[in-house]
């Protein structure tokens, strides 16, 4: 379970997050939507402390993590992250990308990590790409490999930061399908996305973020069909 309390983040004079208090329950799929520059990605990146909040608390499984003395590496092992630009390691094969972290963090030995990686790669449809380098994968394949890499640490939560925004349109579906599979399997997920139809389909709850605060939240029906604020209505009229 992830809790954030009164989360603020500034970059210099730029006040990106202006007080967010939110809870993501175990097994919940939360989609975070909103205009560009609204702070969606910053919010997500604060959850595993890739960005350090300026103010407020981030609490994972009851433990505040943005405080001194926390073993952040241990905490991050519980939170898998998938990036817009994939960020696969170009000097390693797909298999090595997936096995690196479990081996180096001591989670698994080499044989276990390999077996686990091959299982995950076949789950995302890349069983025949284990031995190749990321440079020979398509965008959709790269992102699926990146999902397998994050899953290899057996995370409790998966964070997705605009996972399909850098993809050619024809490759968006294959990545979303993998994510749907995860959601159906009960994975706790926080997804920053511009794919409204996807959000409507998989999300238990949607957060509409604008100018650093959660402007609206609720079920997909509440958000899309019974929009309350003018700001969100304007946004949907442009993207839907």
């Amino acid at each position: 379970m992830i809790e954030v309390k009164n989360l603020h983040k500034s970059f210099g004079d730029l006040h990106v997050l202006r007080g967010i208090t939110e809870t993501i329950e175990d097994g919940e799929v939360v989609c975070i939507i909103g205009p560009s520059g609204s702070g969606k990605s910053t919010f997500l990146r604060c959850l595993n402390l890739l960005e350090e909040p300026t103010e407020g608390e981030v609490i994972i499984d009851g433990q505040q993590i943005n405080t001194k003395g926390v073993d952040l590496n241990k905490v991050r092992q519980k939170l898998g992250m998938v990036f817009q630009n994939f960020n696969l390691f170009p000097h390693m094969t797909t298999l090595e990308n997936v096995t690196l972290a479990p081996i180096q963090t001591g989670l698994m030995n080499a044989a276990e990590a390999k077996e686990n990686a091959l299982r995950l790669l076949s789950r995302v449809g890349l069983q025949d790409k284990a031995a190749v380098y990321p440079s020979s994968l398509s965008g959709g394949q790269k992102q699926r490999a990146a999902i397998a890499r994050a899953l290899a640490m057996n995370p409790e939560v998966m964070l997705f930061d605009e996972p399909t925004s850098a993809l050619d349109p024809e490759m968006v579906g294959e990545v979303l399908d993998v994510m749907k599979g995860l959601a159906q399997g009960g994975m706790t997920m926080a997804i920053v996305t511009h794919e409204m139809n996807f959000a409507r389909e998989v999300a238990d709850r949607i957060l509409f973020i604008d100018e650093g605060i959660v402007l609206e939240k609720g079920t997909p029906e509440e958000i899309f069909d019974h929009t309350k604020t003018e700001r969100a209505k304007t946004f949907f009229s442009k993207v839907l």
Partner: protein
Amino acid sequence: MEYLIGIEKAFTGIGTTLEITVFAVILGVLLGLLIALMKLSKLRILKIIGSVYVEVLRGTPLLVQALIWYAGLPSLIGSMGGSFTWRGIEVVCGILACGINSSAYVAEIIRAGLQAVDTGQIEAARSLGLTHHKTMRFIVIPQATRIILPALGNEFITLIKETAVLSIIAIEEITRKGILWASQSYTFWYAYIGVAIVYLCMTIPLSRVVAYAERRMAVSDRS
């Protein structure tokens, strides 16, 4: 025929030139790595020391630096009541002058190489729970090496040519051998063409090797 003699005379200095270059590169890489890490350090004082070091060495001619080491330093030690001379160990002076000069350029090569690694790579590694140390070891350094190694190869080639300035401090490397023969025989044309050819015989093959390495490393690096 005179051309051959020119080449032959210049060639007698090749051992000294290579000896100085190899040791200067080793010194340059070790010092350069240290300075690069200082410049990337979070400690302000280390950053400043690193920056000043690079600025001073890149902002003055190697010839002047060589003169300071060779003639200036013994004179300073003498004026303070000590006694020191490079006589007999001029080569060591040459290695020091070239190695320290080169370290400033190497520091910038290493710093740029480390900084060229995409921050997304570091974020991905850290998000998986890898420590800073393991992220450096498995992600940053292997990728930076692909950028740094070819540049270091070019620095080696540059240094082979730069050692020519050591001819002024009585080190009998390639250029000095040419000067000596020219002033004996008055065949300036053949002497210096010979010197040039000997340098080319080293630099052309080496730059081919570096270009090949550059291509090889670029191939597996496109993500």
